[in-house]
């Protein structure tokens, strides 16, 4: 029962580089989410997806791109990383209309130098 996994768990990159964070869930949940966690801000929604090929912006989408070609995968790309994108990123999934519970992955700690 793998659940929801994220890779890599830790990443150090440089300003201006492209970085892709991966998220994979084995439950066939319809909804998937990307959050960033920063001290003093809690968890802020970056993007979410209600189903394959359906994505929408969250609270802080600037500088990020997502795609969802398959139900189980929801990669997050930083096209040109900036220092302000140094954060811990969490992916989450939710079954669908029948359930409100979001299940979170273990997180990816990203440092942009």
């Amino acid at each position, binding site marked *: 029962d793998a659940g929801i996994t994220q890779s890599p768990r830790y990443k150090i990159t440089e300003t201006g580089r492209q970085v892709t964070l991966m998220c994979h869930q084995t439950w066939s949940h319809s*909804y998937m989410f990307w*959050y960033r966690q920063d001290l*003093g*801000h*809690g*968890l*802020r*929604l970056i993007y*979410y997806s*209600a189903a394959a090929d359906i994505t929408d912006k*969250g*609270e802080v989408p600037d500088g990020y791109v997502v795609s969802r070609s398959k139900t189980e995968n929801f990669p997050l790309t930083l096209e040109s990383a900036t220092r302000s994108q140094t954060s811990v990123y*969490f992916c*989450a999934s*939710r079954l*669908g*209309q*029948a*359930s*409100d*519970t*979001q*299940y*979170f*992955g*273990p*997180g990816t700690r990203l440092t942009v130098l």
Partner: protein
Amino acid sequence: QQQVKQSPQSLIVQKGGIPIINCAYENTAFDYFPWYQQFPGKGPALLIAIRPDVSEKKEGRFTISFNKSAKQFSLHIMDSQPGDSATYFCAASRGTSGSRLTFGEGTQLTVNP
């Protein structure tokens, strides 16, 4: 615009004490109020949730109190244990099965033995 405000930022109690964490929301359309618990290095996990049709919900040692007129809700942890030391987040969403959770800033709870 912070739609869910959480306090205190940190809290230290002795074993057996009853820590109380408070949240206030602005959007009257919110109708789902979960609390998430996060241990260091892990993703948040759903602890307990409430809808506005009840004023209190209890699950084990955890209780949510909800005051719709004041737009406030709180988490009480009875007989707190050192293992309860974690960061707690309140959240809110709207709609029967709201997709987008808005999180509070988090409270770091320490329960001393």
